[in-house]
């Protein structure tokens, strides 16, 4: 997959390679990996063979792995030099996403723990 024009400094996100066979193979590999990860996710969620408290963490890890597969094989985000701008923008997006999500869950979790005297009352308070 090195048929890129050496004169080219950047490629657009989602821009496929220039060889029809390697392009199609990349999509098929991506689909196969995504199917396997999805299947494992659904299996992990329904089996009782695994340690219960670890299942949620495992599911999140599987989801992040599948997002990576989609980015690499479907959106063609690579570590190549012509992809630097796309990767930098992605890195910034991921940073903000993690800040928003982890920050909110952390703060709201502590607020619930510190401010509500009993869970039933907390449940009522959150309706307002």
């Amino acid at each position, binding site marked *: 997959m090195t048929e890129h024009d050496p004169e080219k400094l950047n490629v657009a*996100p989602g821009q496929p390679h220039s060889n029809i066979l390697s392009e*199609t193979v990349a999509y098929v590999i991506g689909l196969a990996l995504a199917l396997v990860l999805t299947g494992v996710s659904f299996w992990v969620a329904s089996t009782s063979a695994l340690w219960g408290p670890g299942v949620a963490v495992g599911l999140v890890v599987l989801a992040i792995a*599948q997002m990576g597969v989609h980015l690499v094989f*479907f959106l063609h985000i690579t570590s190549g030099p012509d992809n630097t*701008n*796309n990767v930098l923008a992605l890195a910034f997006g991921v940073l903000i996403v993690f800040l928003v999500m982890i920050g909110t869950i952390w703060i709201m979790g502590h607020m619930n723990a510190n401010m509500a005297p009993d869970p039933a009352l907390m449940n009522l308070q959150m309706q307002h």
Partner: protein
Amino acid sequence: MTASEAPAIGLTHVGSEDTGLGHRGPESKSIVVPYGFWLFVLSDMVLFSALFATYASLAHATDGGPTSNQLFDRNLVAIETMALLLSSFTCGLAMIVAKRGNMKWTLGWLLVTGLLGFVFLFIELYEFASMIGEGAGPQRSAFLSAFFTLVGCHGAHVTVGLLWIGTMMAQIWSKGFREHIMRRLLCLSVFWHALDIIWVAIFTIVYLIGTLP
């Protein structure tokens, strides 16, 4: 004043003519437009992260109403997931044949992509309708408000994507594979793949973790 003393934007080094702006000026539109669209898609993911954070905070605020374990059907979600994943794949195939100017196959794969997206949307609307029918609508509890906002926002994106697929099919049909049409098609594929990435987070966080025993 020599050329090396001329004011230049960006980092310069003594003996280097590199102004930090590249030797050839800005990139072509076929790079800049999809890059700008990529920035939009990433900011869309930031928007979704706020909705995910809201959902995670309110997932247990059920106000004595139905919980996620009682409401969600994993089999329906599995079908939805398959439909959206396969449509992402066929969208990629459409891009491959579009690049080679094959009208028939491009329209064909785009049609398959749109139909799979429609299957997804139909199942989602069926799920929403049956939940509202059981009295588990968005007004029932904070948990359900957050659920309908998050999943509904994704569904709205899919609806827009379906309209866009139809528009692109008509444009390819009437105008052929001109450069600006190809740019739009590339943006569409980035949008559609991004929707599938967001769905991975939704089916994991909302449906699978939400229905753990």
